[in-house]
């Protein structure tokens, strides 16, 4: 990998834009949610504040939420690409974005309790690499705050309390339960990322991986697409509303994936993404130049 400065500039721009500017599919969904709340209601006021916040953060080039979150980088690289060098230059970009206030000093040593001033530490940022038959690098960044991350949960079916068996009806019950258990505490209206199956670990990763999808897409697996639509529709009857202060829009979307499982296990893993759903992606040329934006 050559042209480190060029690479760093492109990755820095990805971080900056992710922090200050929500993708248009998310903003559109929030606008629709706003018009769906009655005039003069708390829900409408919350969404009005959210939309104004999005516009102001973009215009003034500041982080739209102070919790700039866990930084999850997903790379698709050409076969044989030096991913160590790519990780190293990404860390440099993260440290600069922190210094410039696009990222909060958001990383704490879990043993000593010490705060890290650069966000570059053991386990931060997080990387996922995939080799593909391509000549460019595709980078997607998710910034996921702690408030919504704390709301994630994992069910093991059957669950007698929920009356949830090992089928899609059981999954439906888990998801509705997860929405009610979360209330507005993950900064509603948010998005559910779900994985059916896998083991405890891969289920969590796959659930979160769903957040790389656009809000306006639908699972290509017909049964899952139907379930996504249904959960979203049913969530509107729960009355939780924006920030859990009451209202119609308790969710913006539901994204469900599935992994194969062992005969003995049936996990349903739910990750909650807040409305400040920071997701951006870029295609970077082999020379490090920013080629085009994804999403």
């Amino acid at each position, binding site marked *: 990998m050559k042209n480190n400065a060029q690479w760093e500039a492109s990755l820095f721009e990805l971080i900056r834009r992710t922090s200050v500017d929500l993708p248009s599919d998310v903003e559109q969904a929030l606008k629709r949610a706003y018009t769906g709340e009655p005039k003069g*209601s708390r829900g409408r006021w919350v969404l009005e504040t959210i939309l104004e916040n999005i516009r102001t953060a973009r215009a003034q080039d500041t982080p739209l939420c*102070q919790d700039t979150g866990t930084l999850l980088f997903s790379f698709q690289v050409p076969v044989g690409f030096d991913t160590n060098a790519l990780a190293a230059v990404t860390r440099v970009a993260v440290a600069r974005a922190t210094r410039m206030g696009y990222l909060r000093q958001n990383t704490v040593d879990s043993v000593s309790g010490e705060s890290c001033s650069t966000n570059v530490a053991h386990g931060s940022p997080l990387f996922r690499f995939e080799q593909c038959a391509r000549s460019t690098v595709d980078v997607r960044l998710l910034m996921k705050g702690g408030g919504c991350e704390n709301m994630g949960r994992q069910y093991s079916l059957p669950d007698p309390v929920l009356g949830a068996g090992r089928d899609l009806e059981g999954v439906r019950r888990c998801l509705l339960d997860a929405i009610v258990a979360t209330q507005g505490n993950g*900064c509603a209206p948010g998005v559910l990322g779900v994985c059916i199956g896998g083991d405890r670990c891969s289920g969590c990763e796959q659930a979160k991986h769903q957040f790389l999808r656009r809000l306006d897409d639908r699972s290509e697996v017909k049964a899952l697409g139907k379930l996504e639509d249904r959960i979203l529709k049913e969530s509107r009857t729960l009355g939780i509303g924006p920030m859990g202060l009451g209202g119609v829009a308790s969710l913006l979307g539901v994204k469900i994936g599935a992994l194969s499982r062992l005969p003995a296990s049936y996990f349903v893993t739910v990750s909650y993404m807040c409305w400040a759903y920071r997701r951006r992606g870029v295609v970077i040329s082999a020379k490090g130049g920013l080629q085009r934006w994804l999403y």
Partner: protein
Amino acid sequence: MAVLNPRRLTYPFTAEQTGALRTGDFVLVSGLVYTGRDRLHKYLFDDGACPVDLRDGAIYHCGPVVVHGDKGWAVRAAGPTTSTREEGYLPRIIRNHGVRVIIGKGSMGKATAQACREGGCVYLHAVGGAAKILADKVSEVKGVHFGAEFGLTEAMWMLEVKDFPAIVAIDSRGRSLLQRVRNGSIRALRKLFDSGEKITP
């Protein structure tokens, strides 16, 4: 509707001011507020010495993005962090320090509701994630405590705010808006479980 008729709260926050508020009311807070989150709450709960007098004051659950420029400290983002984590600490802090206003986000339990009732305190819910809009309500950074000990995110920032918007989630009678919403959603969930058309393979 409450949202169209804001109530005003101005520092120092008296029992009379908070006593007039009801859950669901829309309020605009002005004056001095202190930020504090996990570390400050543990510290105060453990009877650590408080460098300021919190009586009739407000604690804002917030870890702001603050940068030091030519004109001193500037707040770039300052939305609420989840208050629920402080449930174990807050009742004691409200009682010991006479705090009158808590600003944050997320569900609070019975212990905080009871401390609110006893102390004439209110819990105000801000819009989570709206960090830029809320940072713009900060007119001045008046100082900082525990910056070195807790780090800049966890520090106790003294902020002067003007018309900071929030919704009364727990009033000084100990009533909780979020609990009411939760109860309603549990009833609706039972309905979906009982009568919702089951998915068949």
